[in-house]
């Protein structure tokens, strides 16, 4: 209900956060410039030309013009309108950005968008079908497998892959093969329970 009201006013949580970010960026600009000169970094070369990049995301071909430095994670969040994949550490250590590339769970923050053209990319937004939740999403709700929820999209993408890989024969194996996804709220016991619940249901879909 709240969400619907916000939309009629042209304001939702995400656009509100975005407008806040502009203010923060303006305030932070002076400090950033100081840091750059203090480090005496050599000036960057001319900005690189953007390159055309085509990605297959959740079954749709999407076309972008991107700086070659753009990671898949930034492409999804900032250019494709798919902010479900989360940026935790941006260094390949936390797993919050986990997506599936050609069926394999992969860290989007350490993947260049340019390098995964021709691959099939599935994000948390593409996991469920026709407005129904994937059994793993439902299992996370049923088992209260999150608190703040920030790591949850990555946990769920990793959990789905963990089941498909066959690494769910016991709790120890689930824990070992989910170790690439950190949860600062430590919802781990509930995450393991959710995976135990969803695994047999996934056999049926």
């Amino acid at each position: 209900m709240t969400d619907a009201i916000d939309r009629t006013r042209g304001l939702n949580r995400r656009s509100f956060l975005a407008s806040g970010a502009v203010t923060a960026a303006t305030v932070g600009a002076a400090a950033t410039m100081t840091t750059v000169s203090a480090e005496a970094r050599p000036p960057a070369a001319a900005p690189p030309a953007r390159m055309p990049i085509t990605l297959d995301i959740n079954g749709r071909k999407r076309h972008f013009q991107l700086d070659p430095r753009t990671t898949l994670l930034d492409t999804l969040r900032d250019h494709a309108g798919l902010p479900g994949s989360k940026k935790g550490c941006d260094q390949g250590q936390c797993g919050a950005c986990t997506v599936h590339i050609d069926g394999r769970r992969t860290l989007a923050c350490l993947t260049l968008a340019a390098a995964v053209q021709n691959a099939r990319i599935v994000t948390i937004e593409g996991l469920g079908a026709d407005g129904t939740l994937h059994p793993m999403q439902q299992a996370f709700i049923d088992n209260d497998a999150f608190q703040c929820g920030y790591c949850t999209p990555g946990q769920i993408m990793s959990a789905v892959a963990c089941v498909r890989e066959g690494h769910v024969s016991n709790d120890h194996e689930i824990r070992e093969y989910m170790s690439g996804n950190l949860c600062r709220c430590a919802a781990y016991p509930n995450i393991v329970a959710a995976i135990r619940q969803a695994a047999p249901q996934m056999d049926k879909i």
Partner: protein
Amino acid sequence: MRPFAYIRADDAQSAVRHASGVAPSHIGNPVQYLGGGTTLLDLMKLDVMQPTTLIDISTLDPARYGQVEKTAGGVRIGALSRMADVASDPMLVRDYPVVTEALWLAASPQLRNMARVGGNVLQRTRCNYFRDPSFAQCNKRNPSSGCSALDGYNRSHAILGTSEQCIAMYPGDWAQALIALDTTVEVLGNNGARVVPFAALHRQPGQTPDVETSLAPGDLITAFVIPGGPWRRSLYRKIRDRESYEFALASAAVALDLDGDLVREARIAIGGVATVPWRSIAAEAFLRGKRVNEANAEAAAEIAFAGAQTRAHNAYKLPLGKATLVRALLEAKELSA
């Protein structure tokens, strides 16, 4: 991340031609190969590595560069194979368990899906002074600048193969299995293909910690060849601060060929403790013809760690490393051949 040009390689030869040039080392080369990217992009984000061109080799023909195949000489593993695929190869799991265990005990499932084994052996140290450019002194990152780790916080650092210039630990696991099993490396360079012993791939820091390998700029690792052997009785043991998804504080790759109770041949490499992949041929020779019991395993461990030099915070690695090797030897003995 600094700007770079992105080029997708059509074939290995043209990639090598493009990447070969004058540079202080393959690491200092402004043209770098992009495989899984798990080390390179991380270090570029940290501004530790600053290549101006990336040549994407990840899509080179997997039939040629990404397969595990049994050959007359043993096993050939294409350099673009993913860690996860090599770790689960049924033939390797059965005949060379040390090779697969050292892979699945490393990193996380996501990273093992991404990282290619050619890049895996070249992964760079986790020394925090190296990884954080706000520290001015790092002979590896900035030659002749000094070393902040010598008298800094050096709990994770090496005790074998160190120099007064650098004590950074080689963090990899798989390399210990490869060096123990006499692996060779197929390298494509600007002057053609050549074969290099794995033991000659990495260089101790000495006076030039910035030169980490014997590869020339533009050299491309295309495959690893593990000679055939009776190595079903082999394993990898890894001790770390947490049980999964962590680098080794100490590890041991061990393979045993037994004649009854006596050692016909032993292979021993130790990780988490040295500046490069570290095989102990002297410890192997000591065990030949002997029983693998606690006394002999402890004596072999003493030999393996001879010459270790500890610093303020890493002295624990000496007893931990020896105990890890003793345990690995005693457990390997119990495996069936």
